[in-house]
Structures are given as structure tokens and as C-alpha cells.
């Protein structure tokens, strides 16, 4: 198992490297530089700035320099906020995004798995159909539609929850953004859980457990939940990626000062080092979480663990 984990870790390095190089080249190929807007400085000043940031060197050399910096954990300076390094900016924005993401993911798993199991146990019933049609809706409506609707409903109309971020305190301000972010994942996880739970419940060992007199609850908890979670677990990779992308929109809509918001601002301001830094940070995060998910497989499936 440990060997397997190490191998997987080594295997992730080329992937990450590829992502970095591609992202770097793409940002470079984007039209326009950070300093050529309407108020363009004097060409000589520009040349001086470019020299400071090594923008006058050939791309390959810049890439090499960038990679060298990465090894030291240095993502370079921000073009827009020269007082900060990109790493510092990420450090400022990440906590809010992390909280949002973790809450959304937990909510999605908790509600999704329960609803899916519930529906599987009452396959074909009214409850089942309600859960399923709800989740169909959840999957098909995009975040940028859900978010404003929830705000309108709960904050503006009902005044149950605060509409904005700044000014309001406590957990209440998290509710709408978290629900918005989690909704499509709840829907997807519920469908997955339902399908795999139905499959697991039809297996012979469930019949054995029933013949042993174990009640439905014990059967789900002891026998069915683990194997039924395997497909949900494989969906965790894509789910994490979806939550990350979703958070970019959600943070923008609700004005949350997170990493997603920094990313959008960075892009609008042509702060290329910042954009690049966030992309790489997220890529590394996704790769790492996927690794964790893979290892979790071993926890659930003893035959995987043996390898």
C-alpha cells in the first residue's frame, strides 16, 4: 500500500509538469501584455519594466526561470500588486475559498448519499421519483442561474439570510453560496448513490445478511454502504474540479474575497503571473486530492489494499 502510494505520487509529477508548461505557454500566447493598456508608459520605461520582469527574454528561458522559482515555492511577483508576491496573494485568498469548498463538498456528500440511499430503498415509489426529478433539475441548471435565484428568494424576498458578504457575520453568510455550489453535486451524487446502492442491494451477500436477520438499517450501514460508495468515490475527482470552477463564479456573484475572485480580477487586469500561479496551485490541489481519493479506494476495498 505504501509502495503504491509512493508510486502514484511519483506518477503525478509528470502530469503536474505538463500542466505547468501548458498553462505557462497559453498565458504567454494570450494577446496583450500587462502593461499595454490605454495609459501606456513611455517605450523606454516599458523596456525597463520588461527587463525587470525578464519579459524581454525568449520564452524558453522565461519558462526555465519560472520553473526554477517554482522549485523554491516562488510563483513570482504580481504584476498588478507589486508589493505582493503571487504566493502571498494566494495565501490571502485561499482560506475563504477553502472554507467554501469544504463546506460545499461535505454538504454534497452528506445530502447526496442520504437522498440516494433513501431513493434506492424506495425504488419506484413517490419519494424515489421526487428525489430523482429534483436531482435531474439540480444537474441541468447552471450555477450562475441558481445563485441569483437563491439570493432573490432567501435574502431579498424572505429576508432569512444576508444577501452580501461584507458586513454580515457568522455562518449565515455561507449558507446561500455553499448551497449554490453544492446543489449540482448533491444532485449528481444522489443519482450515483441511488444507482450503485440498487446494484449492491441486489448482490447475493445482501441476501445472506437478510437471511441472518439483519434489519434494513444494519444491512445498509454494515454491508451495503462501503461497496456502494465506490462509484461515488471515483466521482470525487471530477466533483472537486467542479467545485473549484464553480467557486470562481460563486465568489464573484456573492463578492467573497476568495481565490476565485482573485483569479477573475487577475484575468481582467492581465495580471498574468497571478493567473498562472492560481492555475498551477489549483492543478496541484486537484492532482493531490485525486491521489487521496485513490488511496481511499484501498481503505474501502481490501483487494485493492493488497497491491
Amino acid at each position, binding site marked *: 500500500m505504501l509502495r503504491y502510494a509512493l508510486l502514484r505520487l511519483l506518477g503525478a509529477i509528470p502530469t503536474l509538469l505538463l500542466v505547468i508548461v501548458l498553462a505557462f505557454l497559453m498565458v504567454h500566447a494570450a494577446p496583450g501584455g500587462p502593461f499595454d493598456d490605454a495609459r501606456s508608459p513611455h517605450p523606454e520605461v516599458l523596456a525597463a519594466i520588461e527587463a525587470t520582469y525578464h519579459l524581454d527574454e525568449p520564452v524558453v528561458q522565461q519558462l526555465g526561470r519560472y520553473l526554477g522559482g517554482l522549485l523554491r515555492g516562488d510563483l513570482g511577483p504580481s504584476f498588478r500588486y507589486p508589493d505582493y508576491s503571487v504566493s502571498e496573494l494566494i495565501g490571502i485568498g485561499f482560506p475563504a475559498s477553502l472554507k467554501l469548498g469544504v463546506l460545499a463538498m461535505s454538504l454534497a456528500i452528506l445530502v447526496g448519499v442520504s437522498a440516494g440511499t433513501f431513493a434506492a430503498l424506495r425504488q419506484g415509489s413517490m419519494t424515489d421519483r421526487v428525489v430523482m426529478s429534483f436531482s435531474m433539475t439540480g444537474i441541468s441548471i447552471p450555477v450562475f442561474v441558481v445563485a441569483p435565484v437563491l439570493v432573490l428568494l432567501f435574502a431579498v424576498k424572505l429576508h432569512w439570510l444576508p444577501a452580501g458578504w461584507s458586513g454580515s457575520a457568522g455562518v449565515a453568510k455561507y449558507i446561500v453560496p455553499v448551497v449554490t455550489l453544492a446543489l449540482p453535486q448533491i444532485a449528481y451524487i444522489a443519482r450515483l448513490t441511488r444507482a450503485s446502492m440498487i446494484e449492491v442491494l441486489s448482490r447475493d451477500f445482501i441476501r*445472506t*445478511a437478510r*437471511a441472518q436477520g*439483519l*434489519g*434494513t438499517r444494519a444491512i445498509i450501514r*454494515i454491508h451495503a454502504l462501503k461497496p456502494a460508495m465506490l462509484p461515488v468515490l471515483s466521482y470525487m475527482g471530477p466533483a472537486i474540479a467542479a467545485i473549484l470552477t464553480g467557486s470562481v463564479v460563486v465568489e464573484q456573484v456573492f463578492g467573497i474575497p476568495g481565490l476565485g475572485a482573485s483569479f477573475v480580477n487577475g484575468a481582467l487586469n492581465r495580471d498574468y503571473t497571478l493567473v498562472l500561479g492560481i492555475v498551477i496551485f489549483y492543478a496541484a490541489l486537484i492532482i493531490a486530492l485525486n491521489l487521496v481519493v485513490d488511496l481511499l479506494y484501498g481503505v474501502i476495498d481490501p483487494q485493492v489494499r493488497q497491491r
Partner: protein
Amino acid sequence: MSLLNVKDLSIQYGESTVVDKVSFVVRRGESIGLVGESGSGKTQTALGLLGLLPRDARLTGSIRFKGSEIANRSDRELDRIRGRRISMVFQDPMQALNPYLRIGEQLRQVLLQHGLASGVKADQKVVAMLKRVGLQDPERQFRAYPFQLSGGMRQRVMIASALIAEPDLLIADEPTTALDVTVQAQILDLLETLRHDTALLLITHDLGIVAGRCERLLVFEAGKLVETGATTAVFASPQHEHTKTLLALAPRIDRGDILPPVTDKTLLGVEGASVSYRDAHHAELVAVRDVNLSLRESETLAIVGESGSGKSSLVRALLGLIPLKAGRVVFAGRPLEGAVETRAKSLRRDLQLVFQDPAGALNPQMRVQSLVGESLLVHEPALSTPERVQRVTASLATVGLDESFLSRFPHQLSGGQAQRVAIARALILEPKILICDEAVAALDGSVREQVLKVLREVQVNTGMSIIFISHDLAVVRSISHRVAVMYLGRMVEVAETRRLFSAPRHPYTRALLDASPVPDPLVAPQSAPLFGEVPSLIRPPSGCVFHPRCSYSDARCKDKRPELRELDGGRVACHHASETLLKQA
């Protein structure tokens, strides 16, 4: 008072009735055999008793357990009885145990559920139970997962979980069908010794199993209970026609059949053949080691042995489906070598194979006509379509299927019909050798007899030779001229069928014979002749590979591998195969 009183039990799915007004009683502590062919409703009845039928099933009638009605009761009520008062052992222990849960935990849950023990007490009880069913080192096995155990061990765990609550009734549905014969004998012994005063309802298609072990019999046919009575009485004078047929068709290891004569021209010779595989860890696994064999014209040679003995690997290598690692094969005086694709067409048609699973071997999208005629397109492309159809029809006729089958798809065939189509497909090329790999293992008595009869007839008419692979000695006895016994990749004994069955020379052959159930209550069932199970091929035992399970083994057996040598007109690989020794045993 009877323990279980079933009255007019019927089970329906929509319009079809799969169990039809069945009534019987089970008394305290008695053992009852429930026999019948596949699909006769045995399993459905058992599931019905425990309220475990699928939701679309409709159950009517009355099931009284200790006087109270349990038919169509809620799960909540039944959960107090299931596993506690009535428990069940299922056929396939790999599927029936939870692969994600340690076996100790699976047993412990039964105790917790019924409030019989908890905490350390429960753990101790589980370990004690695992020990009673014969698991070595039960403390360690407590933490094992099912996939880490052999098939026999898993079934022992299954039995442990069914008996741990000391129920009043144990229902065992084909508890040994998935196991090797020597292990089957062990499991049946275990059920008998452990159940004490728990009544046993033993479901099986094998009359040999119930003959020596059950006091009474229930005979099912197409959902109906057609005969019931004391086992000895039913065997001695069956009343119902169906019982008579079942008894007549039960293959008997203690009786042989008359076979077509054999020539003494050698058709196929195998010399020093070895086959090896690499497992997931790239370790070499020698599945067949140094096997010598010959097959004469018009002869049926059976190859028998338990799982892992290398029977299938050997014939696959003959056919060129997998490479030989060493040795050679000579067919009709010419060497037979290389992969099947590289062999001459004529050689390919001379050797034909029929598999165990007929449904899997037939393309579900093709009609019988194309399935059977397909190979003619390759081997006799000059044939016109009407000629081809004629050949197909003739080939189907030899296996007893008429023209109405030409346009059917595989899913429209029963198991026996599908197997006969597979045989027709092999026979249409008029092979010199037909290789049957467990070709009748999945078939019911009557269907199996049809297929065996077809094989014998074709042999008489065409002089074809047959290699017949089977784990079932009783079937082998009725069809083969000679038998080769394999164990762990080695040939341990080869002899004429009659000689082998009446006077086995190798201790393993003898154990196989003793373990095979005889469908006759007057023949006392042998207690399991062998302990343990077939060891792993990856680390085969030293010296004689059979020595860890052999009751005759001594120091020499451990060190030195016995060569196959001539004895009594056969050949046997055993240091102690002298006549007296084995006869006394």
C-alpha cells in the same frame, strides 16, 4: 409437534407459477433432502420459507413455524426468526459472503443482531465457532477477508454464520455444488457433525448427496412436490414416474456402461508436455508438468481432477490455444505444433472443442443455422448454400434437434439444447478428436444423459476419439474407456476405466472415488477421505505433490518425486502404490 408446517405453498411471478401448492412438514432435528432438477422450484421454496423472495413474487399458502404463521409477515417480524431460528447456507460462498467485510465481523453481526453476545464475549464466540468449523488459527482468520480464503474455507465460514445462533432449522441450498468432490465430502460431514438438534433441509440436484445423509426426501418436479417419503423407501421403490427417471438417470460411480470397442491404433501422443503461466506478480506457475499421454482411435479418454489440476490447460495446449512450455504432441504421425492460427486448416478441423458453458460459447446474435454452419464457410467454401443447410440439418439431427431449431437464437434454447448446438457445431467438421471440457457439468440428469448418448452414438458411427474432461467421476465412468487422473499439474494415475474404479492404485484416485457420493442409501456414505484442500500451484509441495494430504505419506514422499510407472496394466505415480497397501485401506 412439527417444527415447520408448510401447507399449499405457491409462488407466482405474474402469470407463471414456479411453486405450486406444496405441502410438507419438518420435524425437530430431522434431516430432509429436497431434490429436483434445475428450475423445479427448490430455491424459490427455500427463499419463500424465509420471506426472502424478490418483490414481484407472490406467495400464498401457509407456513407455520413452531405453531405460528410466518408466511407474508413483515421484515421486522421475520428478522427475529431469520438467522436465529431458521438460517440458510447458500450455494456460492464467494458471492454469498460480503467481500468488503472481515469474516469475523460478518459472524459477529449475527450475534449482535440477535442479542446473543456483545463486546469481547461476541468475539470469543465467533473465534470458537470458526474453530469448530475447522478453520486453523481462528484468531487470525477472524480478521481475514473472504477472498483470502479457499472455496472450501469460505463455505465453512458460511456454515459457521448459519449455525452460530444455534437455530432450530438450517436450510442449505446446494451447499457443495461449487466445490471439489473431496471438499464436498468434508463440508457435508461438517454439516452433519455440527448441527446437533438443528433440523436440516438439504437442497440438491445430486441424489448421491441425499442418499446417505437424509432421513426423508421431498422430490420436486416443475414446481410441484411429486413424492415424499423415507429416503430408503423412495430409493427402493419410487412411486412417481419422475422419481423413477431421476433415479435411473443419476450417474453411478459404482456401475459402468457398455462402450463401443476401441482400436489399438494410436491417434494422438503427448510427450513430456508442460504448460506454465505467469501470475500477477510475474511468478511462474506451472499448471501442467511433464505429462505423457496417448489416445487411440475411437477411444474416449477421460481426464479427471479437482480445480487447479491442469486439465483444461493441458487440452488448451493440445489445441494450440496456449503455448507448450516443453514437450511435444504428435497427431496421426505428424507433430502438432505452434499456435492454432498457424496450423494447417485440416489439422484445425480434426480437433474440435466443446466448452462447459454453452450459452457463453454461442454468439447471442446469430441463429442456430449460422452458428453451426459458420465453420463450413472456412473449411468447405465450395459448398452451395442449400448444401450447407443440408449439412447443418444433418449435424443437428445427430444431436437430436430437428429443423425447427435452425432459425432460433441462443436465448431461445434450453441449457441442454444449447450444449447440443455447440456439439453439432463441433461435429459438422467431422473431427477426428472431440475435446469436451466439462461439457455436461452444467446440465441436468436427463439432458446430460441425452448429450452423453449423442457422444457415444457419434463415436460408434464415425470412429471419432473423445477427450472428456470432468471433475465428476460418476459421469466419467459411464462414457470413458480409459481415465487419466491429474493432481496439481501432474498425471498421477492412468488406467482402464474398470480397473481404475474397482482397484485404484494411487491414494488420490482412491480418495476421489471415496468422496464421490453414491445415489443409494444402502451404500454407507464414506466420511471425508481427505483433509485440506488443493494447495497453491505457485508453491507446490516438495517431493510427491500429494504428500500433505496423503495418509500413506512418509519421509521419502516428502523428498522424492514418484515417477509414473507401469503397474497392473496402468501407470501410477506413487512410492507406495503396491497392491496390498491400497486394498487394505
